[in-house]
């Protein structure tokens, strides 16, 4: 086999020129991405959620558009987007409606508009926000061990029942606990800038009723499937997964209202025309009815596109949600003032750590 060796030799001037170009290229990614969008840079969650997302959307998208998907995975990606807000390095960020409203208002995200996202018009109004439209709807309520708890559970406040002492878990603030705390605080008459009722009540839950913290989905499923915990706030399909792993658990939507999370990737602003167009194309694909049905089949969560909701195949009919369900799921969350919540984040988290957990 013949080996080819380049006869080209770089002069010092050429080397310096290439170095300068490299520095410029690294420093001005937006400019570079504007020339040709040959990759989509995406901040995303890891684990099964990424696997399902790839199988339902990005594998086909990358092949059809001849682009490379560049991932960075982790639970909380918003801080990175905030840190890079003056010079964004990523095209898309996996996010829910709370964080999308917060970082969107800071100018980090582009609004979702029909002109860029043709499928947006078919998304149910309950799942459309200024900076995000859900590719999926994840109902959130209480996961209850029906073998150990025989009485009727229909309220968030049932977690405080002394009969469940040491058998209650609550999600970490760094997971979804902050929003769930605010939801219960509102049920108790508090607001985003008055968390006294919530702090007092949660102090009871942790000090008197021996509640523990759930760190993430995997931890929650493990706690429920081993029956170490009998009741905790959780997503509907994750409750089903805990049941599949042997935990005798059922999903309950509390009478005060559940939480209605929607998840998708937000469009990061100031990335250059080509990159932004390519990113919007991918987001539009996540709003497509057929794709959403495929994603629902994998995740066990209902789609958000009205056409998908109407045309669910027989095996997914259980995911159908009525208007009454929708009203119940989003009852509390719709009242959230996301910006006040954001403004008081530091104080509320510190109070929760000091007064409830310590």
């Amino acid at each position, binding site marked *: 086999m013949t080996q080819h060796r380049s006869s080209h030799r770089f002069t010092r001037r050429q080397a310096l020129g290439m170095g300068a170009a490299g520095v410029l290229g690294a420093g001005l990614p937006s400019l570079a991405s504007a020339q040709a969008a040959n990759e989509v840079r995406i901040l995303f969650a890891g684990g099964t959620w990424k696997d399902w997302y790839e199988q339902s959307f990005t594998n086909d998208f990358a092949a059809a558009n001849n682009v490379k998907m560049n991932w960075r995975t982790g639970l909380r990606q918003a801080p990175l987007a905030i840190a890079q807000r003056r010079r964004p390095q990523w095209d898309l960020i996996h996010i829910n409606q709370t964080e999308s409203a917060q970082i969107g208002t800071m100018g980090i995200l582009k609004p979702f508009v029909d002109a860029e996202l043709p499928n947006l018009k078919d998304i149910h109004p309950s799942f459309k926000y200024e900076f995000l439209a859900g590719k999926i709807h994840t109902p959130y309520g209480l996961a209850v061990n029906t073998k150990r708890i025989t009485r009727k559970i229909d309220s968030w406040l049932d977690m405080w029942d002394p009969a469940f002492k040491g058998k209650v878990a609550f999600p970490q603030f760094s997971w979804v606990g902050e929003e769930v705390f605010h939801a219960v605080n509102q049920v108790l008459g508090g607001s985003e800038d008055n968390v006294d009722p919530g702090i007092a009540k949660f102090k009871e839950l942790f000090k008197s009723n021996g509640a523990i913290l759930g760190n993430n989905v995997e931890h929650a499923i493990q706690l429920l499937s081993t029956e170490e915990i009998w009741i905790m706030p959780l997503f509907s399909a994750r409750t089903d997964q805990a049941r599949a792993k042997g935990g005798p658990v059922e999903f309950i939507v509390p009478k005060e209202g559940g939480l209605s999370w929607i998840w998708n990737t937000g469009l990061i602003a100031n990335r250059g025309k080509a990159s932004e167009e390519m990113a919007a194309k991918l987001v539009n694909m996540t709003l497509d009815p057929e794709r959403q049905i495929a994603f629902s089949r994998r995740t066990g969560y209902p789609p958000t596109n009205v056409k998908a909701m109407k045309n669910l195949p027989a095996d997914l009919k259980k995911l159908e949600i009525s208007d009454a369900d929708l009203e119940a799921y989003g009852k509390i969350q719709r009242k959230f003032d996301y910006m006040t919540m954001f*403004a008081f984040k530091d104080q509320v*988290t510190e109070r929760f*750590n000091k007064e409830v*957990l310590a």
Partner: protein
Amino acid sequence: MTETRRAGWLFVTPIGLLYLLILLAPLSYFLLLSIFKYSAFEMYLFEPTAENYQRLLFDPYYRGVIYRTLRIAATTTVFTLLVAYPLAYFLARYGGPGRGVLMFLVIAPLMSGVIVRTYGWIVLLGAEGTINTALIWLGAIQRPIQILRTEFAVIMAMVHILLPYMVFPLFSAIVAQERNLEQAARTLGASNLRIFLEVTLPLSRPGIVMGSVLVFTLTAGAIVTPQLLGGKEMKVLGILIYDLVLTTLNWPLASAVASLLVLLQFSVIVLYFRGARGRAAA
């Protein structure tokens, strides 16, 4: 400059530049950030303040987190040393054919991720876990005892996870010892215990220092194991930084905590090395 000196600089320069880039630059960045004012919407304002350090050093809650971190790191270091020393001694002195296999077994835990190993401990220590089930089956206890979500569980898991970091420096120190020194002491009538205390152990000091520094610093900055095994009260400096950066978004305070953690770790390393050098000189 001599040829040897020049070659020395040549070898040191790349690693020096690398350290400058990946260690000193971020370190300087968060040191600077730690004296800026927190703002919910701007992340930080360019207004110098001592507020972050005041909050950290004078608030009993944060002081408690610092004490807890130091306590766990120190206890883990002591227990890891106690477990690792006999193991390293055996590996260093045992010349049999199985030594390679034993060495592999010591390294084996490092081949799986820390999260996997920590979840393994959850399975073992949980109320419905292996240990409680075995104790109930043996009749030693009537109902499950609380092992998980205690400081004890965190320390036990940290000792297991960090054992190789202590074993190998100790192994290197013990295997390098001149066996003739022990024989000479024995010829002069010293007992086995006295030989160990006055010859073997002092000569193992470099390994003890290196292993202890590694275990202490890694424990002081640990996040996953204390969070998964320690429960709600187990706030240590690593978890605090993680929460402040990712959840609260108070980066100036997170930077102050990180600066303090680096300072504590650095102080411990300096004190340890200085103490070890002092004793060696004496």
